């Protein structure tokens, strides 16, 4: 990261890494929620798919903003993920695609605000839900 | 012409900012607003110092391999670097004082605080007289 590789600097880097690991263990946050390792095998494919979705919905949102055709709606959907990290990934993916925002989470039921009806239909078709569940089952 | 206007423009705005900070400190009654005013004043002084250190066409004072580089003046940077951190420490101290004042008087408005003080003083005075 620094671009300088003398012995002193490298050893300091190793010491600081060790300090970080120690703090993390002491904070007792090292679990599946923090580092969902079993996501990794399918993460790349999921990311590419997500980026495609984000691009499409960005263009849609730009159209809505420029041509004044917003028609907001609020609805609830169910998520099929079992673990917390899966739910968070799903909710974050919904929020990341502009046009839809997760507003509340109660157990398995998400409340989603969508800019237009068509965005709402996209979420209701639960394609993203399936993708996240597929990501969660990876291994 | 443009050169002359922009040459002193920074100074003008910095002085105006300074005066805005001073105005807030003098005229506003809320103690919290006064601390914000002090912060504005501080930042404008920092800007003034850093503006002195600038050399047009120079770069940041971190030495590169190019030997003919012009560096801006690093001395004001050092002074201001420490001043910013000390400024935050004093701001925190002021805030702590304000919180204590609010606990003691039930208000952070200057007028109300002095009114409470006046009432207390008169009560004590009249007690002494009665005795």
């Amino acid at each position, binding site marked *: *990261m620094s*671009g300088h590789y003398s012995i002193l600097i490298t050893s300091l880097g190793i010491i600081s890494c060790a300090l970080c690991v120690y703090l993390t263990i002491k904070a007792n946050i090292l679990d599946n929620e923090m580092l969902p390792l079993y996501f990794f095998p399918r993460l790349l494919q999921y990311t590419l798919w997500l980026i495609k979705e*984000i*691009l499409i919905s*960005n263009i849609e*949102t*730009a159209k809505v*903003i*420029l041509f*004044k055709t*917003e*028609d*907001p*709606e*609020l609805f609830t959907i169910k998520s099929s993920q079992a673990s917390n990290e899966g739910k968070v990934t799903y*909710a*974050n993916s919904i*929020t*990341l*695609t*502009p*046009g*839809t*925002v*997760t*507003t*509340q989470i109660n157990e398995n039921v998400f*409340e989603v*605000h969508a*800019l237009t009806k068509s965005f709402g239909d996209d979420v209701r078709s639960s394609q993203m839900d399936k993708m996240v569940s597929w990501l969660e089952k990876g291994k | 012409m443009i050169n002359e206007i922009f040459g002193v423009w920074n100074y003008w705005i910095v002085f105006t900012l300074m005066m805005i900070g001073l105005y807030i400190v003098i005229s506003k009654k809320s103690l919290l607003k006064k601390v914000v005013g002090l912060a504005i004043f501080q930042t404008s002084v920092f800007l003034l110092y850093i503006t002195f250190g600038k050399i047009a066409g120079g770069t940041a004072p971190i030495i590169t391999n190019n030997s003919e580089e012009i560096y801006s003046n690093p001395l004001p940077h050092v002074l201001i670097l420490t001043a910013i951190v000390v400024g935050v420490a004093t701001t925190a101290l002021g805030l702590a004082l304000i919180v204590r004042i609010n606990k003691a008087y039930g208000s952070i408005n200057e007028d109300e605080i002095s009114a409470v003080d006046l009432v207390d003083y008169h009560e004590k005075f009249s007690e002494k007289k009665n005795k």
Partner: protein
Amino acid sequence: MIDSIINYSSIASLILGILFILIGSIGILRLPDVFSRIHASGMIDTAGTAFIILGMCLQSGISLITAKLIFIGIFIFFTSPITGHVTANLARKKGLKPISNNKGETL
């Protein structure tokens, strides 16, 4: 040849990013309520940031700077949905209701 292609593509992506950010800020100004404005700010945080960082990466070539730029990109990608969601969540909790366009009423 390749240099000029990279240069032009980086310029194109920078301009695209600026366009998205401009549209997003117009959206923040124009849309009617908080919940709709979150979508516009999400546009700035995703598409605008991504395109501008892509443009800068192409400018700098493969170096340490590119790694840092990608780090910024990942960081903003991580934090933007969190702030958006938390804002919306709080607004819902405090009883704010989104405005529906058709009847001029709340949903």
